[in-house]
């Protein structure tokens, strides 16, 4: 047996498992999973790409929410995946699908702003497309929520993206790291500092009362 293997075994021979070994296995696992789906999607398997959508749509939604008005985010999520699909062959490392897709999402948000003639205002309305094609409100966004959204959008980019993924999309820190390709350490720092800055930005007492409904 190779000595490197012996060393790895020794690392978790004690009561505590080695965080490095654990991280290694998570990274390999994610890489393998995404790689298999990307390869299948490249061969024309639409259900495989559908699973990538299921896995990554929240990340893309969070990235877009940090940059564009709420009312347009859902449509842009679809745009991002429809842009990515024909470009899959340009992805050199299939296991880096998440960070590649995140870059497409950021570029799509930039294009959105470039192509907007009027200055875009962030809308408070959350809309969804009905079966007849018209848009209708999905949820009422009250003034308090609007203020929180604006405060998060005022944070540095890396903090606001991470906070949107955590607070809106319900992703955990480890999930954010696995999806975006950032290290867990960076995500944890982004969450912590972002939350700290958000607390400072929000009016005193804004987070004191329990949220109703």
């Amino acid at each position, binding site marked *: 047996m190779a000595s490197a293997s012996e060393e790895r075994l020794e690392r978790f021979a004690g009561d505590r498992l080695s965080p490095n070994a654990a991280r290694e*296995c998570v990274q390999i*696992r994610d890489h393998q999973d995404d790689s298999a789906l990307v390869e299948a999607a490249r061969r024309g398997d639409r259900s495989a790409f559908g699973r990538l959508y299921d896995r990554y749509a929240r990340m893309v939604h969070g990235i877009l929410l940090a940059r564009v008005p709420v009312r347009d985010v*859902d449509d842009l999520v679809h745009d991002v995946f429809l842009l990515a699909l024909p470009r899959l062959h340009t992805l050199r490392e299939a296991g880096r699908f998440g960070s590649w897709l995140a870059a497409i999402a950021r570029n799509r948000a930039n294009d959105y702003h470039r192509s907007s003639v009027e200055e875009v205002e962030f809308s408070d309305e959350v809309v969804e497309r009905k079966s007849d094609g018209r848009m209708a409100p999905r949820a009422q966004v009250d003034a308090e929520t609007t203020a929180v959204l604006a405060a998060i959008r005022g944070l540095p980019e890396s903090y606001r993206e991470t906070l949107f993924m955590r607070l809106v999309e*319900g992703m955990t820190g480890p999930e954010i790291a696995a999806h975006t390709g950032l290290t867990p*350490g960076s995500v944890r720092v982004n969450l912590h500092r972002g939350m700290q800055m958000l607390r400072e930005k929000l009016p005193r007492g804004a987070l004191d009362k329990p949220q109703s409904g």
Partner: protein
Amino acid sequence: MGPNGLGMDKDTKDDYLWDRSGEPDPEVRKLETMLEKLRHSRPAPEFPVIVQPSARPWRVAPLWLRFAVPAIAALLMVAGALRLLVKPKPVPVAQAGWDVVRVEGAPRLGNQTITAAAAAGKLAIGEVLETDAVSKAGINDRATGEVLVEPDTRLRLLASNSAVKRLALERGTIRATIWAPPGEFVVDTPSAVAVDLGCVYTLHVDGDGNGELHTSLGWVGFKFGERESFIPAGAMSRSKKNSGPGTPYFEDASQSFRAALSTLDFEETGSSPRAAAFSTVLKSARRRDAFTLWHLLSRVALHERGPLFDRLAALVPAPAGVTRDGVLNLDRQMLDLWWNELGLGDISLWRNYERSWSIGRTPAR
């Protein structure tokens, strides 16, 4: 639990913000409640079928190649036929198996004792690895992962091929760190089958064949017949021979919650103690324990399912498409949709891998 050892200072260890473990931070909780209505919910669009351009597109072969290929093929066929006629002697094939190292004491591998003088061996298919009260061993497969075999443990390697790596843990404790694709590493125990879904867990089997599974990272499926438990990081499940896995729960759940759960899972009691245990579980369930209540839905009697539904819905609202009637009738699709709201990963991972290994499998006897 988070990735510790990252060099964080103390004040960055806000666990609830990191992975929703520990006591919820009220401010973070309020923000979550306020903002969750903006969460992504739109299903995937109809994706077009696009066959990606090949990196090396085929070209029409030159004329000489069109003749050379059939000629070479004919030569190979003749050579193959000659080889069959000559019947060469069988060549020894390297035996499939896992590398074994001695970590402490003198573990036994088949008939061989691994001592300091002969520290490594190979666990072949069907072979037994056994440790006594003072010995430990490690087994390793480069493509699969590493397993630490604790003292007083006996296990057997059942299969090791490209589709599945399968151990039978007859008694004792193993700690597994697995990087094989989900669903490939399977451990049979007398009371349930553990299927790794990524990637660190501890499995213990006592002298009566009852078991205990603790997940440290990722999650693990634990199944016996139709009874299945999904055990995420920080959670555990006990299992009993002939009954299968009990309801999984987070290890930081209150003692009363855990005791009541044990009563519901494994004790033959009258209706009154059972009702008391059921009531305790509902009352003391935290938001984090929603996943335990989700598992209970398919384990309790129909008359208990209604109050269980209400308590679970109070902790994690049922998503669109999930109805009370559907859940009371244990509609698999609705239960899966609700699971996906728990924030513990997508259950389709389990469903996909479950199909590939569970058919016709039974735990080790």
